[in-house]
């Protein structure tokens, strides 16, 4: 007799547990406002990332096409993966040969977005941009030269 009661008890509690679960999912079917899905590619215009989000390294240029990078290679040393490569050139300043930035080469394919290069920079020349759509069709496109053509260093940055 006891086993029969237990048998039906199990069926009752089993069914009740299933209904409790279905009630949760049913609640969300009838309350579509609580659904938080973002329609990603469609909402691209309104999508805003948080300001600290680390997407890729960019060299900051102002409206006069001037940057703050002196080519000191501190970021190159801080980078764990060899992502940043600074190529120097010699320029004449008051008759002296001085090292300056020729090319700021950035290998996005090797970057782990650890952000160690940003605090390493003594002149705050680089920052992390909020972009995140890095997919390209050709791997060579991931190697970027960050200083814009014709750009030069800001006055007074050493």
């Amino acid at each position, binding site marked *: 007799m006891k086993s029969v009661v237990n048998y039906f008890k199990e069926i009752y*509690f*089993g*069914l009740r*547990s*299933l209904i*409790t*679960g279905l*009630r*949760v*999912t049913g609640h969300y079917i009838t309350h579509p406002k609580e659904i*938080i899905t973002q329609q990603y590619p469609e909402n691209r215009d309104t999508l805003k*990332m*948080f300001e*600290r*989000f*680390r997407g890729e390294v960019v060299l900051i240029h102002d409206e006069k096409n001037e940057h703050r990078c002196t080519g000191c290679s501190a970021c190159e040393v*801080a980078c*764990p993966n060899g992502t940043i490569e600074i190529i120097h050139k010699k320029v004449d300043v008051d008759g002296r040969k001085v090292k300056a930035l020729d090319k700021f080469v950035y290998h996005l394919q090797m970057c*782990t*977005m*650890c*952000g*160690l290069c940003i*605090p390493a920079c003594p002149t705050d020349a680089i920052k*992390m941009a909020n972009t995140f759509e890095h997919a390209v069709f050709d791997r060579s496109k991931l190697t970027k030269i960050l200083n814009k053509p014709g750009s030069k260093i800001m006055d007074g940055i050493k």
Partner: protein
Amino acid sequence: MEETITTALESQEYFINMGPQHPSTHGVLRLVLSLDGEIIRKVEPHIGYIHRSIEKMCEHDSYQQIVHLTDRMDYLSCHINNEAVCLAVEMGLQVEIPERVKVIRTIIGELTRLSSHQLWWGVMGMDLGAITTFLYGFRDRELITDIFEETCGARLTMNYNVPGGLMFDIHPNFQKRTKDFVTYFKKKLPEYDDLLSNNVIFRERTIGIGKLSKEDAISFGVTGPTGRASGFSCDVRKHYPYSAYDRVQFKEILRTEGDCFARYQCRIAEMWESLSIIEQLIDNIPEGPFKAPTKAVIKLPKGEWYQKVETARGEFGVYIISEGQKSPYRLKFRSPGFSNLSALDHMARGCKIADLVAIMSTIDLVIPDIDR
């Protein structure tokens, strides 16, 4: 060799490969199962498919650079891994860490634990055939990743710790967002019970499956919720408090059954504890600097240091041997996943293949953590 073949033929035993690409292995783990019908006779894990030689890479990196490699090990408790390395380096440097850093590290560590358990809960349901839980788990986890994204700058591999403190101060919105999350998640956590814990199908598939006794848990070195479900009191936060765990009240969750359902319950209860830890600390973040002054090039003195922390999976240890250079002479990680995996064979013997999936789910394996 010949003997094995003969016995295998006599007992109708056959071998089957589960993985390296299998949805329930959560990565690239290959299990060689020896089966008798559907009954598992032996499970032999073959690892190494995602080995990246992180320990060797550490020998060439500076101490600041090592931190970001630990993100790539147990990526679900990355902040706690970072913390372990930082604590070990700080121990070697003998720098005093500001109170503010300790509290922030603890809060973010507990948020990491919550997000890891939420993902585990969703994936566990999915492994057992219920895709609904996966979506619900990820819905709540999204709020935590938002907090991380705003404060740390990344959603998964955060790299927020640096030896000596934090990379930057918390975002002004951090406290409000975290409090909002705690109130929200307290309402949602009972839903988890409704959906899965009390579900009759789920209970049938987990209760009494994959038993691990306390003695076996200790001898295999099983830690974390997996070990605590067997009654092995191994919470590093409780026994060897680091950061701010010595000033918060929380219970160490212990179960004695040692089966899949006990491990499940252990993690659900840990989520409640994590919420309570966050609540105790979030209003009491002391003012002060977010970083202790350290040199740009950190050189540890000659010696060796070991620091262990409690990640979402168990005890994670960092052992540094320094020769006085700017990179360590040797660095060893004690990862919880590796020891927990070693007990899989013991737990799964005599079970069915479907039970093996449930057992693997409750161990909560993260394969990059095992391979390193």
